[in-house]
């Protein structure tokens, strides 16, 4: 039970930590955004997982069905996905403009140019 029952959570935590690690460790601005996405997706999975009720079906009224999964977390995550898309697109737009202004999207090269200025 302990390990296998919490199987999904292990995956979520692994995803979450790899995402966060990419954000911290990567030098390339686009890769950082990808890491941020992985990190956010792990949270989406966390919410979706918690809405599942063992043996439950989709929450549509029908005969012979008494156990329903909780739809609310799924709805919440729809909102969070929209927010995530907005963040990603804004982040990538910023990277494009950074590339125009600096001619590079490597963090250390940008820092070097700023130090010279």
């Amino acid at each position, binding site marked *: 039970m302990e390990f296998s029952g919490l199987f999904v959570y292990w995956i979520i935590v692994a995803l979450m930590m790899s995402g966060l690690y990419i*954000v911290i460790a990567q030098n390339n*601005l686009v890769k*950082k*955004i990808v890491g941020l996405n992985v990190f956010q997706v792990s949270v989406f999975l966390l919410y979706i997982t918690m809405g599942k009720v063992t043996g439950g079906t989709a929450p549509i009224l029908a005969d012979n069905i008494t156990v329903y999964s909780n739809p609310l977390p799924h709805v919440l995550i729809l909102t*969070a996905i929209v927010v995530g898309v907005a*963040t990603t697109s804004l982040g990538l737009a*910023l990277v494009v403009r*950074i590339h125009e202004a600096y001619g590079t999207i490597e963090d250390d090269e940008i820092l070097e140019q700023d130090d010279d200025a």
Partner: protein
Amino acid sequence: MIEAHLPILQVIIPLLAAPICVFLRHPVATWALTTVVSWICLAISIWLLQQVQAGGEIIYEIGGWAAPWGIEYRVDMLSAWVLVIVTSIGAVVMPYAKLSAEKEIDRDRLYIFYTMMLLCETGLLGITITGDAFNLFVFLEISSLASYVLISLSQDRRGLTAAYRYLIMGTVGATFYIIGVGLMYMMTGSLNIADLAKLIPDVAATRTIQAALAFLTVGLALKLALFPLHFWLPNAYAFAPSVVTVFLAATATKVAVYAFVRIIFTVFGGINILQSLQIQDLLAALAIVAMFAGSAVAIYQTNIKRMLAYSSLAQIGYIILGLSLNSVGGISAGLVHLFNHALMKGGLFMVMGCVVYKIGSAKLDDMAGLGKRMPVTMAAFVLGGLSLIGVPLTVGFVSKWALLQAVLDKGWWPVALLIVISSLLAVVYVWRVVEVAYFKVPSTAAMEKDEAPFSMVLPTFILISAAIYFGLDGTTALDIAGDAAATLVRGLK
């Protein structure tokens, strides 16, 4: 009739005005619309504050769906007060914004600037007024996304990298916040803040709730730039267009502090989390380090906008120190300082906006002789600086005095000593500017009077004179903050 719907109007008016700005496009028309909307928001928030003072908490169910199923807006003393802070800063900044933005933002991007100012204000007001933890996240992201765009509107390319770094840090912070909310939902099945406050005590001992608290605290600490999670702030404030810096410095971190207060004292108030988990000392220690590190680094800055940004970190330290005391006195000192800091830092950044407007730079060396060239503007800087130090008869003194009293009540006299010493550091960095502006002879620039335009100097003086007025009459703000703190502490057990 309209009175009943004030809470939703507070948020929906700027939200609806934002897309209208995109259609209008004309710089002056969008500016006029934004200004009018910001004044309407101010009127609504004052109206709400009066209603709360007269009749107590206002609960507004959106769409008639009762909480905890529906989303409700809740206005109590604390949120009404933060609403007034945000909207009054907005109302003062907008008239100022016109010339400053024309100078520092490309003309074809001006309508985006006004749209984003409205969206940012919508988000900040939404965070303050909502009674739903997930709704708070959505508003947090609305205001954050708008502020990333605002910072990136800078003509300095470093504004772009500052906006990018803020985006990464801000998104990590907000995602931490929803992880925390999700974990709380797992254990309680509720997202309503008032409902959570009732349900949390039963499950407080579980690992899940403790993990939730950790995620919420770290996430919000990132947003409010508590040391050592502050790295995004100095560059974001230094390289954003001046008027954006004024608005963000005076409101964004303050609203994040508000969200932090809601989580710590309302959601986790039932189990008195600061004491029961002993994070009180940790918060106080971080706050004290922030006070010193912020002020010390500020001394070495050559860009004055950056210097004021570091000084903000120190001031956030005072606010968090007040909150960490976990007493009525401490919390109200923190809340008063939140208000006072919004006034004085808003005013000081406005002064820098005027300086950038006239001399095109915020560097210390370029400010030589400004005391003669822009006497009125620099007088505002001196008054704001005195307030930052905490000289008597200014707002800075009122809140530091309240904080000292609260600290001494706890018997933490070494901390009281540290507050005084860190205030002395503020003397150093304010004096550096005064010395250069008044006593250093400029090398080339003309010494003739060349004041910033009236429409920029007047809003600056409104904020600075408010900082003096509330310093002379400290009771008004202290009473409201005291009321708000008392309501919060009543929830503690």
